[in-house]
């Protein structure tokens, strides 16, 4: 399978992952410096999942995201300037400053929103997949959710309906081991969320979520199956968030050990991927560094755009409530 991935796709995935990482590192710092209002849930550590899935999708394919949604939007093609503008609450943001981090979205990119409600996304993705089938397109809908959301009724209702109607819907579970501050062992009696697929008559696939290529291959299969009209797949990606539930330092709660965090950081998806690409002669260390440098520059520009953008006019408060 690996041989089928072109070098360009591998570089593309790397680029998407680096874009997520540097955006998130900067956004987290800006929040903790008090420059970005509200709460940010950072995607650092999980980049291989968003990149490995999204590289298969076009703007006509839909995704629903989570409270940890910046990475999904970036991987789907989100631009830094309008994303930072949204996080800064500016009129030039993707949502004109009305959504912020937890509702950041872009309909033109097929991104049906981050979502502040755990489990809010899967039923909406089922609706988008239903719509694709109803309108006789081959577009798919991917819904991202966590191990925590797999305990919500909404997930189960959505999974059952997607399978019943054989909808082109891919349930991507990013199992990062924690529902907010509660470990998976303390919130569900199973180890593999993919087991739940059996209850809905769909394939359940487990993949190393720190390995972009593994995610790419498994997602590719699930998406091809969906496009062919063969129905949904539950794809569980075992991953880890390097930072806290909220922000970088978080609230200083002790709910996971330093050893555990250190273990997973050794499996940093970007470092693993860069080592592999260098070894295969696809992207040298120098070339990778150049990507980081270029993305860092784009992040700086995005922040400058946001900071120099106007705040929403108070008259905008009551706009967009109704069409």
């Amino acid at each position, binding site marked *: 399978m690996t041989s089928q991935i072109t070098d360009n796709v591998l570089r593309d995935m790397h680029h998407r992952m680096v874009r997520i990482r540097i955006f998130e590192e900067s956004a987290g710092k800006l929040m903790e410096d008090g420059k970005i209002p509200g709460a940010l849930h950072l995607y650092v550590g999980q980049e291989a999942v968003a990149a490995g899935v999204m590289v298969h999708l076009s703007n006509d394919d*839909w995704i*629903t995201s989570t409270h940890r949604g910046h990475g999904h939007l970036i991987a789907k093609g989100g631009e830094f300037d309008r994303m930072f503008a949204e996080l800064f609450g500016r009129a030039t*943001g*993707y*949502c*004109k*400053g*009305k*959504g912020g981090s937890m*509702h950041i*979205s*872009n*309909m*033109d990119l097929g991104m*049906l*929103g981050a*979502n*502040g*409600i755990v489990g*809010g996304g*899967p*039923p*909406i*993705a*089922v*609706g*988008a*997949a*239903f*719509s*694709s089938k*109803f*309108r006789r397109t081959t577009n798919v*809908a991917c819904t991202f959710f966590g191990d925590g959301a797999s305990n919500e*009724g*909404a997930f189960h*209702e*959505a999974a*059952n*309906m997607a399978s*019943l*109607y054989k909808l082109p819907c891919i349930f991507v579970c990013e199992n990062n081991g924690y529902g907010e501050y509660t470990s998976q062992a303390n919130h569900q009696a199973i180890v593999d969320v993919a087991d739940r697929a059996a209850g809905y008559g769909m394939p359940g696939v487990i993949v190393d979520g720190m390995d972009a290529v593994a995610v790419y291959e498994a997602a590719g299969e699930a998406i091809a199956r969906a496009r062919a009209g063969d129905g949904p797949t539950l794809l569980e990606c075992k991953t880890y968030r390097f930072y806290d539930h909220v922000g970088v330092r978080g609230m200083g709660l002790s709910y996971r050990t330093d050893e555990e965090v250190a273990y997973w950081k050794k499996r940093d998806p970007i470092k693993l991927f860069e080592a592999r690409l260098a070894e295969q002669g696809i992207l040298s260390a120098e070339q990778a560094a150049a990507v980081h440098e270029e993305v860092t520059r784009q992040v700086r520009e995005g922040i400058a755009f946001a900071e120099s953008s106007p705040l929403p006019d108070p008259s905008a408060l009551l*706009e*967009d*409530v*109704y*069409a």
Partner: protein
Amino acid sequence: MAEAQAKPRTLPYVAAITDGVREVLKEFDNAFVAGEDVAGAGSVYGYYNGLLKEFGPDRIYDTPISEEGIVGLGVGASATGCRPIIDLMFMDFMGECMDEIANQLAKMRYMFGGSAKLPVTMLTMAGAGASLAAQHSQSLEAWICHLPGLKVVMPTTPYDAKGLIIAAARDDNPVIVVLNKMSLAMQGEVPEGSYSIPLGKANIVRPGSNLTIVALGRMVHEALKAAEALEEFGLDAEVIDPRTLQPFDTATVVESVKKTHRALIVHEAVRFGGFGGEIAAQIQEEAFDYLDAPVGRVGAPFSPVPFSPALEKHYVPNAARIVAETRRLLGL
């Protein structure tokens, strides 16, 4: 779309609903119906009877008993180019899907800075009086009128049921159509073809001069009976059916009160915290100086809906209670 020539004929409320949905399915290729027991069974109320045969299984979908999934289906499908009609068998079941209604359906457009459109029509059933007890009889319109982003209509006649369903489906916003189960057999004139009733515009169903009764849903008919009974006390009541609760036609109500100087609000929902309180507040804010008496409210008592007919008949407001409250209010 050109409005069809009105040709008078009489239909029950239940068939008027069917007729409205039929017109929507004919008008919009991207419209479909989804809900529990809507296809094979034609709904437990029978108001989709015949539509599966007429439009085929690609337009009418039975769903699992999964209310959150059903509303989510409407959210996702409408945001991506469909015009769904979503059926929630009993309004009481909103408890099962309130996240998708309140946090997704109502707010998505605003949260997205206006980039999404959600033309969902949700039909649901309210009302007590059939001994269906506490979980199948409620009138919970106040819950949804409190959510910016939703529109809410309450059809009271067969004519209104058809016209408001068509108006709801043509609107680019989520509109919840609150039907009443005790009105299903009610007969009324329903023109053939397509017509719509403007959202946000109240209907003065009985003009009057010295008392305004604003009645919601089925209570309109009780208010009309009460208005006749009140004539012997020298009252000439104007009865207003708001038709749409959100957005509410405050202007028509306030104009009426400025003329009549007295106002009574009637709804089937529990009085405390009900939508009538909002109407009363609007009246006193905009017509305080015109009022000759406090604004009265008639609603259900502060209890769950009881099962036994012996109790339920004391629960649901009726013409006699409207008359009694009016007399108490005005000292007649």
